[in-house]
């Protein structure tokens, strides 16, 4: 080949590269701007501003109300809002949204969608940043929202780094039911997919600090609020737009972790919240006793969904939900001056004595005349243990008491304890129940659905320890002493007696696909729950994991099934926190064997 020809061939190859890149970006469409290979959850993770606009262009008919704001906006659950306002909310939350983004988003929503309500969430950081990130593919707004020249907008995404497209293909293959760092959004609600976060076992503070070390040594980087004026102009613009369109606007200031407020000077804080009151009335959750409780937050600037539930309950006067008294204030131009003082005169710190409670949980199995040195204990021993607990001042509470404490803040007795039995043995009916009644104690029995009323293994003729029947279960439940809950229907199989591979616990089998596992787990649990409801007459609200084995996915599935508590076999005392339902998930239990009453007290009192 002649050199001249070679040079032209080279130029041809060189020019073909951008064309190739554009073709790849157009077809794979990682940012979700061209409407190909749609995977909104992934695209929204790359750039929520753009991908959510594309999503709404297709789905706007399904919604009539919108949440607008930065990442903390995600923690106001749309389900609660839908109920309070009888609406259908979509959360447009995008990380790092400043008020300019918010203003342009609201304008686009009003122009292009049916809108009844706008909830505008304002975070304290909005005083610091304004109009940032417009030139980055991962931060810019959709051209329809920002008014950017479509040529530069789409051109930018056509020429995007091919790694994004590659990631989309690679991540699609690695996609799982629960979110991963590449697909953090829930397509339908627009909020972060917090299913994993909402089943995280939170309780003991020391364990929490271990899991979230940021709260032990909280970094503070001082910042000045140079954008109060511009931010307020945008809030005013949003207010005026909503008013003109007849849309109800709710302005909310998000709860902020106490130490984070030290980022700002008192003058800036006062100026920010006063200026906001001059523009609009708003609900302020910025600072309260909640601000000092790290368990209500999951990182430096984000509060948990449960706190969002509390905030919404306060706003909409729902007194069925626990809300700390000082949480939330309605601020108007008139009371702003007084209100701001609570922000600038911040006192106090973490004091959880009023809203946390330690609850040990005991785990029993079969009770016989003679103990076997393992999980089967003797009747005499059981009675001795109950007597010891009673004498030591423990009150054996029921599940409903725990729920009421966490959800509504209803106090628990002084030394609460929860007694549980696994598997559903006949001896629970014949021996344990009378003893419990005698000592005025409640208990929970987790039954294995397939074994109810059986004394052979799944009718194979192989004898097993006898299990009580539904009639007996109903009798116990009606007494108010015993609550019958689930130990799965048939996910506690015997490795020896069942066909291989036996499901000895409720976690995936080796090599089982996520899809197959979910189907198996859900159908098993649904059967267990419906049989108990039918046989006992009471709904199932809790389950104990066979062998104590669980995964985040199994926890999330339980929550999807409507369960309020799950139990493991981790030997630790639980700390319940008012307003944090996830502290009832993955609760620890002490396995009780043939030990004296005194030894039992030692076990639970450490």
């Amino acid at each position, binding site marked *: 080949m002649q050199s*001249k020809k070679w040079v032209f*061939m080279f130029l041809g190859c060189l020019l073909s590269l951008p064309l190739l890149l554009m073709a790849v970006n157009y077809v794979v469409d990682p940012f979700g701007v061209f409407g190909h290979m749609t995977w909104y959850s992934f695209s929204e993770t790359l750039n929520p501003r753009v991908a959510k606009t594309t999503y709404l262009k297709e789905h706007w008919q399904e919604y009539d109300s919108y949440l607008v704001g930065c990442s903390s906006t995600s923690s106001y659950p749309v389900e609660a809002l839908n109920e309070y306002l009888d609406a259908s909310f979509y959360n447009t939350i995008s990380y790092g949204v400043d008020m300019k983004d918010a203003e342009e988003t609201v304008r686009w929503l009003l122009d292009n969608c049916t809108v009844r309500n706008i909830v505008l969430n304002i975070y304290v950081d909005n005083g610091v940043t304004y109009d940032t990130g417009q030139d980055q593919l991962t931060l810019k707004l959709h051209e329809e929202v920002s008014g950017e020249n479509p040529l530069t907008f789409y051109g930018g995404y056509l020429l995007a780094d091919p*790694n994004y497209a590659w990631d989309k293909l690679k991540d699609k293959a690695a996609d799982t039911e629960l979110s991963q760092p590449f697909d953090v959004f829930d397509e339908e609600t627009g909020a972060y997919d917090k299913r994993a976060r909402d089943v995280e076992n939170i309780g003991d503070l020391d364990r929490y600090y271990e899991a979230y070390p940021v709260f032990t040594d909280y970094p503070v980087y001082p910042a000045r609020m140079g954008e109060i004026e511009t931010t307020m102009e945008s809030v005013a613009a949003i207010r005026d737009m909503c008013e003109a369109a007849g849309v109800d606007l709710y302005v909310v200031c998000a709860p902020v972790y106490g130490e984070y407020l030290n980022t700002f000077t008192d003058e800036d804080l006062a100026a920010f919240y006063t200026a906001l009151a001059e523009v609009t009335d708003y609900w302020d959750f910025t600072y309260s006793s909640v601000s000092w409780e790290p368990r209500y937050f999951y990182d430096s600037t984000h509060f948990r969904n449960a706190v969002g539930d509390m905030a919404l309950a306060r706003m909409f006067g729902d007194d069925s939900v626990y809300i700390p008294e000082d949480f939330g204030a309605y601020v108007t131009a008139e009371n702003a001056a007084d209100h701001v003082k609570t922000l600038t005169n911040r006192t106090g710190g973490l004091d959880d004595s009023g809203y946390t409670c330690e609850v040990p949980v005991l785990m029993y199995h079969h009770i016989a005349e003679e103990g076997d040195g393992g999980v089967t204990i003797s009747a005499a021993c059981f009675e001795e243990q109950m007597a010891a607990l009673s004498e030591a001042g423990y009150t054996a509470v029921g599940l409903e008491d725990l729920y009421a404490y966490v959800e509504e803040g209803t106090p628990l007795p002084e030394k609460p304890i929860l007694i549980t039995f696994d598997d559903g043995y006949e001896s629970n009916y014949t021996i344990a129940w009378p003893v419990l009644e005698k000592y005025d104690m409640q208990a929970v029995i987790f039954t294995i659905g397939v074994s109810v009323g059986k004394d052979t293994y799944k009718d194979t003729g192989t004898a097993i320890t006898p299990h009580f029947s539904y009639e007996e279960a109903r009798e116990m439940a009606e007494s108010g002493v015993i609550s019958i809950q689930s130990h799965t229907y048939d996910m506690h199989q015997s490795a020896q007696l069942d066909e291989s591979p036996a499901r000895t616990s409720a976690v995936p089998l080796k090599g089982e696909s996520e899809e197959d596992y979910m189907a198996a787990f859900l159908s098993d649990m649904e059967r267990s729950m419906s049989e108990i409801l039918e046989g006992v007459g009471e709904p199932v609200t809790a389950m104990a994991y066979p062998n104590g084995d669980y995964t985040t996915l199994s926890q999330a599935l339980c929550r999807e099934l409507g369960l309020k508590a799950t139990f493991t076999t981790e030997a630790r005392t639980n700390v319940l926190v008012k307003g944090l339902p996830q502290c009832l998930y993955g609760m620890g239990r002490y396995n009780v064997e043939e030990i004296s009453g005194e030894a039992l007290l030692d076990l639970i009192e450490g």
Partner: protein
Amino acid sequence: MSFTSLTFLVFLGVLVVLYYLVPRKFQWVLLLLASYAFYLWGGGKTVVYLLITTCTTYLAGRLLGALNSRLKALPAEERKARKPAFDRKKKQVVLAACLLNFGLLYILKYWSFTAEVINNASGLHLPAPDLLMPLGVSFFTFQSISYVIDCYRGKYAPQENLGRYALFVSFFPQIIQGPIARYDQLGPQLLGEHKLSWDQLKYGIQLCMWGYFKKLVIAERIGVMVNAVFSDVWGYSGSIMAAAVLGYSIQLYCDFSGGIDITRGVGQMLGIEMAENFRRPLFALSLTEYWRRWHITLGAWMRDYVFYPIALSKGFRKLGSFARKHFGGVMGKIFATSMATFVVYFVIGIWHGANFRYIAYGFYNGGLITAGLLLEPTFVKLRERIPIRWDGKAWHFFQMARTSLIVFVGRYMTRAPRLLTALAMIRATVTDFQLQSLTDGTLLSFGLTAFDYWVVALGMVVVTAVEWYQEKGGHVRKWMEGRSAVVQWAMVMIPLLVIVLLGAVGQGYVAAEFIYAQF
């Protein structure tokens, strides 16, 4: 403007087109404009230093030229009589030019170090302002001083046109990192008229691609790991430190030689052949040979403007006769030369930067090479007694490995943040190697995936294979010319895709600056 930026590629494309479109007598003007545009883009205000060096060395050259021709114009007898006076004047001019330019270089590059050392030792508070280092200051200073000295020696007549001379000092492909050119070699090419040669253009493009491959795919990739380890060297085992130094050796070679390939490739595209700066240093059999293959133009500069002047100076001649008288034998003969050699490598060490570790680096190289020279007679005797094949492949391979090891140890000194750190790292490598930490996942905690390490390893296999082929006398580009059109197309498209996908994208086109630009 970094070679690896998209801006540079556009700049280059536009320049090459214009270069062959403008009337040929204006080609040099275009190059001068382009060079200053290039320098202003990256160097900004520091262009002042470039102008100072250009003007002062230009003037010195003119003065020296004038003195030379005035002397030459004198009648033979008078010439002889007045020569010493002329020589004195010429020396003054050279001295002034050197003092001014090296003084400037010293202040910019070494003053803060000197001040720190003096302050620490004496408790004084000499100010050490953080001066903005002009791009490529070491390179253009050395290049223009060589011009002044050549004018002094009467090697060629000075350039009379300031603009033409300015182009020699500022020629953009080489201003950041060399090669350090000589006026008689580069000047005529820069100022000459160039007709478009498709062959040259093709070779230039190919050489650039090879350079980009080494820089972007290999050097920048392994650099991530090197930086991660060296940003916090403590707490790693010796094997990780050794891996980081190996990584750095790869990074340095691929970055520097890749950069030079781009420089020379750009030159070829413009019809200008620049001096070779690397000749496959991996295949060097001795440290001396290594320095003749690595950064060749710096070594040559040192030879011509440091070694010879010292070795031929009166003082050294006296030292030579002293040595011959007192040491006798071979030692007496080579002692003075060895000392001059030591000085050269010591200066090369310091040339790299102001820090004790570079001084140590100078001692290390100078010491080893000088020791080698001094012990040469002993080696010769030893060799005669040991009956192995001294010209066999095994021995050559051993020599290559030995040289690489010596160079490798030296790299600890050029990369560690401090001399003491370098020494501690060398000690850890020897006393606390812990081979298992190479496989326990530590290597994956530095920002590189296993895939990245594979890319670097395979990249080095390709580089070594090509260099081996060249070492054997092969011509890769000639070899390619004989292939079919499809193969040639593939040999363009595949490397392009490799460079773009494994080198350019994913780093957001954040152009990494040349490592050597800081020296």
